[in-house]
């Protein structure tokens, strides 16, 4: 959606509660264009620093571009406080279990599709650990996910020695299950995932005959969209966002 100075439709933002994994009640942030819809939807998978301000702003940004967007709090079971403090608790616990994250995301998809303003088409976006969780969820949820934007998902490819009870499967081993078209955005100066893993990830998707579009950026480290961190790279981030706005309408309209 191109921004126009004569736009008349605003935005509605709210906190909601929805059933996540195992029916647990989790909270979520929702932003959507004002009006009855129908609007395509997006589910946002927050990153390791938690359910934080950057993700709230990203939620509103997707809404600004015409998507009814929900960002569930994947750390809702670990207490409440500042995002940094809650993320520290989760970090000390070895992260959240993959199965729990996928269940929470599935709950967010169901919640969004259940809203009167939903068009029924819903995509998935995640960065960092959220990029990994997004790819994992897209593989496991199959046709529930209509499009996937994976931004620098670390540990999509895991060695057997790195598997844990919380992360029992290397997501790339599920590549064959992916049905959604995938847009991948990566920095060539990233170490998680490093460029050779991005190459492997892309090759596995191609070998499986998936609909994919990968973009790699020179001079871009891990997290180069994060304007509040030293990793921010303005030119690469602007171009990366433009790729997202070109990709999503092709699959969610």
């Amino acid at each position, binding site marked *: 959606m191109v921004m126009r100075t004569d736009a008349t439709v605003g935005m509605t933002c709210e906190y909601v509660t929805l059933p996540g994994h195992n029916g647990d009640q989790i909270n979520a942030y929702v932003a959507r264009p004002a009006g009855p819809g129908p609007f395509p939807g997006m589910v946002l998978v927050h990153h390791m*620093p938690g359910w934080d301000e950057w993700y709230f702003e990203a939620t509103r940004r997707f809404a600004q571009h015409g998507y009814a967007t929900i960002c569930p709090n994947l750390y809702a079971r670990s207490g409440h406080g500042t995002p940094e403090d809650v993320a*520290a608790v989760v970090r000390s616990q070895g992260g959240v279990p993959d199965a729990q994250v996928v269940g929470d995301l599935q709950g967010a998809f169901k919640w969004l599709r259940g809203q009167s303003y939903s068009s029924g088409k819903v995509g998935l976006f995640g960065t960092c650990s959220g990029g990994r969780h997004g790819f994992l969820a897209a593989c496991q949820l199959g046709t529930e996910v209509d499009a996937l934007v994976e931004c620098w998902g670390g540990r999509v490819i895991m060695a057997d020695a790195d598997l844990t009870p919380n992360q029992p499967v290397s997501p790339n081993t599920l590549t064959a299950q992916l049905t959604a078209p995938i847009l991948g955005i990566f920095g060539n100066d990233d170490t998680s995932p490093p460029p050779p893993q991005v190459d492997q990830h892309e090759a596995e998707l191609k070998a499986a005959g998936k609909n994919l579009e990968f973009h790699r950026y020179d001079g871009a480290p891990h*997290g180069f969209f994060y304007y509040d961190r030293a990793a921010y790279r303005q030119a690469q981030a602007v171009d990366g966002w433009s790729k997202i706005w070109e990709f999503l309408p092709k699959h969610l309209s």
Partner: protein
Amino acid sequence: MCSMVNERTTVSGGGKGPQGWFPVDYVSVGYDHPVFVAREHAITIDFANESAGPGARVAVELTPESARELIATLQTALDKGTVLKLP
């Protein structure tokens, strides 16, 4: 949680946070994306209390070089205390 490098140990001590002093019963040490330090990865140390909620935390982020200096400094202080037979 991109590196997933995190170690946790039970300790006995105290820490001072925004609300004042509180008992510290565990320390969590990670080597992952920092919030404040301007680099992709750093040593993150949280002195925290399990039952007091997420806010009961004293957080420190160090460059790996500084973390090694801290280890050496802790050891030096412990060694000097041992020589002095401090209780």
